[in-house]
């Protein structure tokens, strides 16, 4: 095999190694994002205009 063949094989090996390393790196990134950002549910104050009283309330 000549120099180009060896270079091609090396390129393939490097690509394979990169892809293999990319998978765990990707999952770690996802977990890290979850750790950095808390999910928070906040109580939303209801505007008084939206509240229905009297006959319009349907009682």
């Amino acid at each position: 095999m000549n120099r180009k063949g060896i270079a091609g094989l090396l390129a393939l090996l490097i690509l394979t190694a990169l892809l293999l390393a990319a998978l765990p790196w990707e999952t770690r990134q996802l977990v890290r994002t979850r750790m950095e950002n808390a999910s928070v549910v906040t109580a939303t104050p209801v505007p008084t205009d939206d509240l229905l009283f009297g006959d319009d309330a349907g009682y």
Partner: protein
Amino acid sequence: MKLWLKQTLLCLMVILLSFGVCMAVFVAYQTEKLLDLAQESGLAQSEAFCEHLATLERTEAINMTSEEAARRALIQFTFSTYAHLLQGRERSFSLVMDGVYLYNISSDRPMEQLPVTNQVIMAQRMVDSSGTPLLITARNTSLLGLPITVYLVEDISDTMAHIDVLTGSAQLALLACLLVCGVLLALTLRRTLHPLRTLAQVSEQIAGGQYALRSRLQTPDEVGDLSRSFDHMAETVEQKILALEDTARRRELLLGALTHEMKTPMTAIIGYSDSLLTMPLPEEERMQAAYEIHQAALRTERLSQKMMQLIAMTDCPVLVRRPLDVKELLDTVRLSVQGSLGEKGLTLETHGETGVISGDSDLLFSLLTNLIDNAAKASRPGQCIRLTVQEDAESFRVCVADQGCGIPADKLALVTEPFYRVDKARSRKLGGAGLGLSLCQLIATAHGGTLDIQSREGHGTAIAMRWPKEEQP
């Protein structure tokens, strides 16, 4: 680099990239899903715990009017009871009221890790506690009129292990795909490109001189087309090389024969001229010597002319084909040969003097005079030479027949070779060089026709040229 290896590497890279991207998307999607499931599970457990605590408000043991300290104590007691029942190694509950832990057995301070304000209903966060992944869920609620925050700290190592297994499986799948595709591609491409290797080997062998070799690949694809084109090219090259070799061989023979033929008259010229210059000869012998020198010179001139004609016909047979009046052609020929025929006591009979034929007048004249000259050399005085011109639907035919000595059957195939003479001594004596029939053969070929020689020894010879009416492309 070999083509099969280059193609294999390229295909593997494309497959690897495509498959790698697909696997990355799949793993990302599954990871997100697993983390979402863990969070939903945490929320559900926290919700269930708060529901358990809410049952406290339905008991009559205490009411809203009781002392705050009593309500706080009851909440603390109830919480610890439920927490004791529900928590384990993987999860623990904590109770915070007014920023103070009323119950906490976890070493990970959840309130500090996930502080929540009064506006927050619930919050979640993943943290890493000394290498252990934890999910903290906080929920604000109100119990017996007191605001409390319930924390759930859950170990999600199982979820992370699940994600790691998923990632490992994806890596294995990627490697397996690389190996399987690599082996299959290499085998398939080597098999597919095998005909090209055969073609290259045949090409090298042909370049080495084996011109008769052919690849003969019969695959119904582009390689098969290439093989057929290659074989066609090899066929043409072989024919050209054979023709060139034949021409070279003929030229070599011609040159050798010419040298030999020139030697005879030159020897005569040198011998007689030497005698004239060095010896005092009587007048009669001097005249005889001069005559011999003249004859030798004439023979050399004839030889030279025929050689020039022969070379011109061999190298570049320029054919000017036009309609010729047969009578006019035969008259010209008769005029040209009647002197020499008359000297030998021969007569010329012509047949078919009407009509028009198509051909090169100069070449046909040369052909007929050569054939009549040969016939005259073979004939005895008093005999007749017959010249016939015929025409049928597709071709013309001229024939010169004599009643002379004829040609032996085993020599018939050789008489058109340059400088070949059946009877060398007699032919030289009569001034022949053995080039006449060679020239006739070339003239026939130039017209796209053939030269047919029929002869019986002792009875005579008939030589006919037949050529097509339509000019060949």
